[in-house]
C-alpha cells in the first residue's frame, strides 16, 4: 500500500509539473490577462508537498524494511541499526534520485510560495522553467528508476547496504549536498525567466541572491562534511582525492561562488548582466552534469553507483534538453541585454570580476581534468587525471584569486585609487614575505604549501581589515557574513597548506607491546582482539598514544568485516588536538616477530592543523548564513517601512479628505516610503 501511495504521489506531482509549466507559459505570454496563469503557483506548492510525501513514504518503507519493495530488498537488511535503515533510503540510485526530485519540487514550491517581488511575467516564466525541469526528472524517475517497484515475491531478507555507507556521515552529507545542488535549480529558472522576459535588473539580482546564497551554504556544508567523511571513513588519510564525483560537487560550488559575487555586482551597480545569467545557467548545469557523471558509469569513480548506460542516455537527453536549451536561449537573447554600467579596473567591481574570471578558470580546469579521461577514451587511450594535474593547474589561478580576494573588499565601488589603501597593501605584502622567509628558513617544503601558508595568514588579516576604522556595532550583518566567509577560506587554506607541508607518516609492523614514534607521539600497541557489532565482526587494536610525557589516550582502530554484503572496511581512530590530528589505521596481520607474536600493520599520521580545513569550511558556510540573515533582516525592515509608509499615507489621505470636507488646507505631509538599501 505504501509503495502504491508513493507512486501515485509521484505521478500526481508529474501531472502538476505539466500544469505548472503550461500555466507558467501562458502567464509569460499574456501576463495577468491569462485566466490560466493563476494555477502555476499553487501547482508548484502542491507538487512540492506530494514529492516530499513520496520521499517520506519511501523512508517509511525502509524504516520497517518492507522487503516486497525491490529497492528495500536490494539495499537494506532487517538486522541493520534503524539509523542506517533510514539513511539507506538515499544510499542507492533510485532513492537518492527521489531525494533529488523531492528537493527540486520543494525548492520550486518555496519559490512559488514565497517570492513576490518579481514582475508577474518574469515570475510566470521562471515557474514554467522550473516545472519543465522538474518534469524531465519525474520522467527519469518513473520511467527508468522507479524506487517503488514491487518484487513479484517478497524477499526473505535484504541484501544489505554497502558498509562504507553505514556511517553517520551518510545521514548528513548527501542530503545537504543535494539541497545545494538542486537548490541551484531556482537560480537556473530565475536566470532563464529573467532572460526570456528581458528583466535582468538589479531588482532581479536582489531576488536571485538569497536563493543562490541558500543553495551555496548547503553546498559548502555538504562538501565540507563529505570531505571529512572520506577522510575518516576510507582510512586513506587524505581529505580530497580529485575523484570525479568530488569534482562534480566542487564544480557547482565554484560556479555558485562566482555567481553570488557577480550577483552582488548586479544588485549594487547594475553591471555584469549577461555574465550573471551565464553563471546562473552554469551552476545548475554543473549539478546536472555531476548527476550524469555519477549515474551513467562513463567515468570510473569510488562513488559511481548506477552503472547503467540506458539511464546514462536518459540523463544525457535531459542535459541536452535543459543545458542545451538554456544555452540556445542564451545565445539568442544575450545580445539584447546591454552589459550595464561601466567601472574601472581598480574598483570593487574590478576585483569581483577578477575573482569571477579566476573562479571560472578553476572551474574550467576541474571540468577539463574530470572529462579528459572521457575524451581520450574516445581515442582508446586510458588515462587517469589526479593531483599532479589539479594541484598546480588549479593553483595558477587560485593564488592570484586569493591575492585579489585579500584586496578586493578594501576597494570602493565604481572607481578607487590604490594609493588610498597603501597601508593595507604594504601590511599584507610584508606578511606574505615574512611568512615565506620564515618557512623557507626552517625547512624544505613544496612551493605550493609555502605559498598557501603565507597567503592564508595574509588572507586572515585581510578578511578583518574591512572592519578597520568602522564602528563594530554598526557593521551590517551581511558584511559580517562576508568577513566570516573570507576568514573561513583563510582558515581552510591554512589547514590544507599545513597538512601538505608538515604531515608526518609512519607505516610499521608491530606486535603487542611494541612502540612506534611519530612527530613527538609515542604510540604503543597494547593488544589486538576480535570484536563483533550488529552486522560486522572486527579486529580491534588497543593502542595507547601519548604526546611527550602526558597521560596516554586509548585508541581503538578497527579492521571491520561486514557480513551483509561481505566487505572489509577500516575504521580509523583519531585524537584531535587544537594543533592537529593523530590518525591511526590498523591493517592486516603481517607475520610474526622473533618471539612468535603476531605482528600487525599499523599506519600512523600526525597531521598538523588538518582540522582547520573543515573548521574553515564551516566558517564559510556560517558566513553565508549570516549574509542571508542580514539581507532578510534588511528586507523585512524595508517591507515594514513600506507598509508603515502606506498606512501613514492612507491616514494622511483620510485626514486630507476630512480636511477637504472641513474646508481646510492639506497638511503637506511627506511620506518617504522605502529607505534605501544600505550600500555594502
Amino acid at each position: 500500500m505504501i509503495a502504491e501511495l508513493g507512486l501515485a504521489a509521484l505521478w500526481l506531482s508529474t501531472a502538476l509539473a505539466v500544469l505548472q509549466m503550461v500555466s507558467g507559459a501562458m502567464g509569460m505570454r499574456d501576463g495577468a490577462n491569462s485566466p490560466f496563469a493563476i494555477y502555476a503557483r499553487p501547482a508548484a506548492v502542491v507538487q512540492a508537498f506530494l514529492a516530499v510525501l513520496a520521499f517520506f513514504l519511501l523512508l517509511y518503507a525502509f524504516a520497517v524494511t518492507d522487503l516486497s519493495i525491490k529497492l528495500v530488498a536490494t539495499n537494506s537488511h532487517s538486522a541493520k541499526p534503524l539509523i542506517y535503515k533510514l539513511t539507506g533510503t538515499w544510499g542507492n540510485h533510485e532513492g537518492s534520485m527521489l531525494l533529488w526530485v523531492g528537493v527540486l519540487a520543494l525548492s520550486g514550491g518555496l519559490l512559488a510560495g514565497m517570492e513576490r517581488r518579481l514582475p508577474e511575467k518574469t515570475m510566470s516564466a521562471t515557474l514554467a522553467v522550473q516545472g519543465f525541469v522538474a518534469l524531465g526528472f519525474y520522467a527519469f524517475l518513473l520511467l527508468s528508476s522507479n524506487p517503488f517497484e514491487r518484487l513479484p515475491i517478497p524477499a526473505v531478507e535484504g541484501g544489505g547496504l554497502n558498509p562504507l555507507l553505514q556511517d553517520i556521515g551518510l545521514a548528513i552529507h548527501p542530503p545537504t549536498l543535494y539541497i545545494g545542488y538542486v537548490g541551484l535549480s531556482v537560480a537556473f529558472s530565475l536566470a532563464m525567466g529573467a532572460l526570456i522576459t528581458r528583466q535582468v535588473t538589479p531588482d532581479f539580482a536582489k531576488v536571485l541572491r538569497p536563493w543562490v546564497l541558500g543553495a551555496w551554504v548547503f553546498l559548502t556544508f555538504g562538501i565540507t562534511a563529505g570531505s571529512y567523511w572520506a577522510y575518516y571513513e576510507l582510512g586513506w588519510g587524505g581529505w580530497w582525492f580529485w575523484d570525479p564525483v568530488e569534482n562534480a560537487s566542487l564544480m557547482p560550488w565554484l560556479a555558485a561562488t562566482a555567481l553570488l559575487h557577480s550577483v552582488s555586482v548586479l544588485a549594487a551597480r547594475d553591471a555584469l548582466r549577461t555574465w550573471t545569467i551565464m553563471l546562473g545557467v552554469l551552476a545548475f548545469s554543473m549539478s546536472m552534469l555531476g548527476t550524469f557523471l555519477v549515474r551513467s558509469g562513463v567515468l570510473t569513480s569510488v562513488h559511481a553507483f548506477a552503472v547503467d548506460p540506458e539511464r546514462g542516455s536518459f540523463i544525457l537527453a535531459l542535459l541536452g534538453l535543459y543545458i542545451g536549451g538554456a544555452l540556445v536561449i542564451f545565445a539568442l537573447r544575450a545580445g539584447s541585454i546591454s552589459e550595464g554600467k561601466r567601472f574601472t579596473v581598480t574598483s570593487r567591481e574590478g576585483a569581483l570580476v577578477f575573482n569571477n574570471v579566476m573562479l571560472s578558470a578553476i572551474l574550467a580546469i576541474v571540468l577539463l581534468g574530470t572529462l579528459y579521461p572521457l575524451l581520450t577514451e574516445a581515442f582508446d587511450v586510458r588515462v587517469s587525471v589526479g593531483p599532479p594535474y589539479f594541484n598546480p593547474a588549479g593553483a595558477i589561478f587560485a593564488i592570484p584569486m586569493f591575492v585579489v580576494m585579500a584586496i578586493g573588499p578594501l576597494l570602493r565601488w565604481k572607481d578607487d585609487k590604490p594609493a588610498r589603501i597603501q597601508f593595507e597593501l604594504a601590511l599584507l605584502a610584508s606578511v606574505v614575505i615574512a611568512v615565506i622567509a620564515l618557512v623557507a628558513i626552517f625547512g624544505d617544503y613544496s612551493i605550493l604549501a609555502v605559498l598557501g601558508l603565507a597567503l592564508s595568514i595574509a588572507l586572515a588579516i585581510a578578511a578583518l581589515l574591512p572592519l578597520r576604522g568602522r564602528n563594530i556595532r554598526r557593521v551590517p550583518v551581511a558584511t559580517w557574513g562576508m568577513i566570516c566567509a573570507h576568514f573561513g577560506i583563510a582558515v581552510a587554506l591554512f589547514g590544507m597548506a599545513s597538512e601538505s607541508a608538515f604531515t608526518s607518516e609512519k607505516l610499521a609492523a608491530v606486535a603487542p607491546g611494541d612502540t612506534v614514534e611519530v612527530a613527538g607521539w609515542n604510540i604503543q600497541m597494547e593488544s589486538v582482539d576480535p570484536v563483533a557489532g550488529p552486522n560486522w565482526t572486527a579486529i580491534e587494536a588497543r593502542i595507547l598514544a601519548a604526546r611527550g610525557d602526558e597521560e596516554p589516550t586509548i585508541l581503538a582502530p578497527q579492521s571491520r568485516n561486514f557480513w551483509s554484503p561481505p566487505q572489509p572496511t577500516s575504521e580509523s581512530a583519531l585524537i584531535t588536538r587544537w594543533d592537529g590530528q593523530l590518525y591511526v589505521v590498523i591493517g592486516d596481520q603481517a607475520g610474526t616477530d622473533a618471539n612468535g607474536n603476531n605482528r600487525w600493520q599499523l599506519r600512523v599520521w600526525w597531521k598538523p592543523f588538518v582540522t582547520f580545513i573543515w573548521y574553515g569550511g564551516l566558517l564559510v558556510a556560517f558566513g553565508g548564513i549570516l549574509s542571508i540573515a542580514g539581507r532578510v533582516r534588511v528586507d523585512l525592515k524595508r517591507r515594514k517601512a513600506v507598509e508603515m509608509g502606506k498606512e501613514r499615507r492612507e491616514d494622511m489621505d483620510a485626514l486630507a479628505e476630512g480636511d477637504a470636507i472641513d474646508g481646510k488646507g492639506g497638511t503637506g505631509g511627506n511620506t518617504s516610503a522605502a529607505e534605501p538599501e544600505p550600500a555594502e
Partner: protein
Amino acid sequence: MRPIYLIPLALFLFFAGVAGYQLTQPKMQTIPSQMIEEPLPEFSLAPALENMPGASRSDFIGGEPRLLNIWASWCLPCIAEAPHLERLKEEGVEIIGIAVRDRPEAVADFLNRYGNPYTRVGADDISALMLEIGASGVPETYVIDAQGNIRYQHIGDVRANTVPLLLEQLENAR
C-alpha cells in the same frame, strides 16, 4: 546575435557528442598493462638453483615465442598453477621461470615436489625485473615474442581455462 554567445553552446554540444559516443561504447573493465607491445627490458639474472641455467633477455631472442613465468616457492597459487604449466610444456612451449625473493634450496624443493616446467630459472632477489615489467604480484605469466617484445600479460595463476588462451596468444605472437 553575437557569435561569442554561441561558444558555451558549442562547448556543450562537443561534450554531449563525446559523452553520447562513450555511452554507446562497451565498457572496458580491465586496463591492459602499459608494457604490452614494449620490448622486454634488459636483464641478466643468476641461476635460482644449482643445476639449471639463469635467465637473461637474450634467452628470449630467436626461434619460437616463449612464456615468462614469475613465481616463487613461497607462493601458494604457484602450486595450483604447476600442473597447468606442465601441460603447456607438453604442448612444446618453452617456459622461462623467474623466482622472486627465493632461496636455492626452497626452489629445488618446490620443483621436486610439483614438477619442473622450466628450461631456465633466474633469481630475482630484489624484485627488480618484476618491477621493471610491471608485474603486480606473483604469479604472473607473460608471452614474449621471438624479437623479445612483451605481447601478453596474464595476472594470477594459470588455470585449466587459461591454457588455450595462452596457446592462442603464443600463436599470435609468431
